[in-house]
């Protein structure tokens, strides 16, 4: 099984969610801040300007079967893209096992 971790723009969450539709059965979402190539913004505070590196991002985590990963990645890329720097990244890694707390079931069936 695979873990897909996608860092996207906050206002793209709904688009991504809709695009994934019923190709996934679950996902987890966290708010975070990121810094990267995207220029941060400047904030104004009592007569001075401050450069803020970190921009708010959303982090999605989806666990899926090995064979589903490529398709999901493609969908996320497409639906989260604006074409401007800061669209975000997707990290793919292995998951060894998955357990459903409610039933104790394990493995791919749980996804």
């Amino acid at each position, binding site marked *: 099984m695979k873990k897909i971790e996608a860092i996207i723009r906050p206002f793209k969450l709904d688009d991504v969610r809709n695009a994934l539709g019923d190709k996934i059965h679950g996902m987890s979402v966290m708010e975070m801040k990121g810094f990267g190539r995207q220029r941060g913004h400047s904030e104004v505070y*009592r*007569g001075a300007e401050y450069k803020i590196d970190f921009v708010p991002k959303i982090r999605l985590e989806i666990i899926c079967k090995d064979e589903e990963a490529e398709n999901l990645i493609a969908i996320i890329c497409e639906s989260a893209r604006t074409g401007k720097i800061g669209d975000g990244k997707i990290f793919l890694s292995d998951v060894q096992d998955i357990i459903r707390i409610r039933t104790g079931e394990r493995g791919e069936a749980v996804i």
Partner: protein
Amino acid sequence: MNATASALDTGDTAWMLVSTAMVLFMIPGLALFYGGLARSKNMLGTMMHSFITMGVITLQWMVIGYSLAFSDGGNGLVGGIDLAFLRGIGPESLHGSIPAFLWIAFQGAFACITPALISGAIAERIRFGPYIVFILLWSTLVYDPVCHWVWHPNGFLAQAGAIDFAGGLVVHLTSGIAGLAACIILGKRHGLERGIMPHNMVHVVLGAGILWFGWFGFNAGSAVGSNGTAALAFLNTFVGPAAGICTWLLIEKAHLGKSSALGGATGAIAGLAAVTPAAGSVLPFAAMALAAVTAGVCYVFVAKKQSMGYDDALDAFGVHGIAGIVGPLAIGVIASQGVNSLLFHGSDTALGGMDQLLAQVKALAAVGGYSMVVTGILVITIEKTIGFRVGKDVEEQGLDLSLHGEKAYNH
């Protein structure tokens, strides 16, 4: 007080009841305003700096403060102790056309808010107990005497003809200068060089709104009656901050390309502080000009403070101190110009003209210098004895958890 009045006026009393409540309501407003500007880990500690004055300064005022400020039994420098514990004052006593107890409450509210203003300069890095010691001493040694100098008819600055309608000298200058002295002595917050941003601007804007609301009681209540002077002070307290807002936002836009909510709030507060000493003494368009100039000067001080090397954390000096200088001075300038009919509304004094300007300068120097020196001595003494500033660990963890055992937010 030596005011004589034949009878209670229910209208005057009604207005003073409300305006006293409004002034006291400024204290939670200030707590919110200052707290929002601090970091979230210091929110409650910062609020407590304001809130606690309604506890300890109130008691000090009842025990001795009122007497030191307003008893006739002293001299030009300080009142006597004959009114300690409000001796001899009862529910039937009058001050002018209002009950004496109401006058004591109104002035007590001023006594509470003034030390709270200081706390902005030294926010996010002081211990709670020593802070209480400090404000108790400061109120007794600085606020009460200065109040006597300026607002008691026998006070030497009142005698000299200084005009301070609602507390430019007594409230804003004393606390602003005290803040400056204290923050220089206690040093900067750790991490300041990387920029410390307000943690909750909603608190700041709402706090400013509450402050403005209360300030109508502060300024128009200083007429001690429900009359034309109160209305003049009220209108000035409405239009002055308006000019402060517009000035600040325009400068900010020109300087940094954006107009911020904090800029609007700060401009309003600067305008409010600016019109305070003049509220009942100048006509509305003069109040607007005064507020605009003050907001401009405050902008410069606030923007430049980083490079001046002190950490006036929430701009107690940058806003209140500066406004406490510019406001009283401007009254002198206006009065000295012979433009009374357009800008100046009467006066409690027979001076006017250039003499008025001199009286104002003298008062500024006396009040500012005195507050600076006494505050300096107090802060150094407290820091050397019981310790005023928190340790680095406490500063890093934040005052709320370390000193008060609480978190502001528990989502």
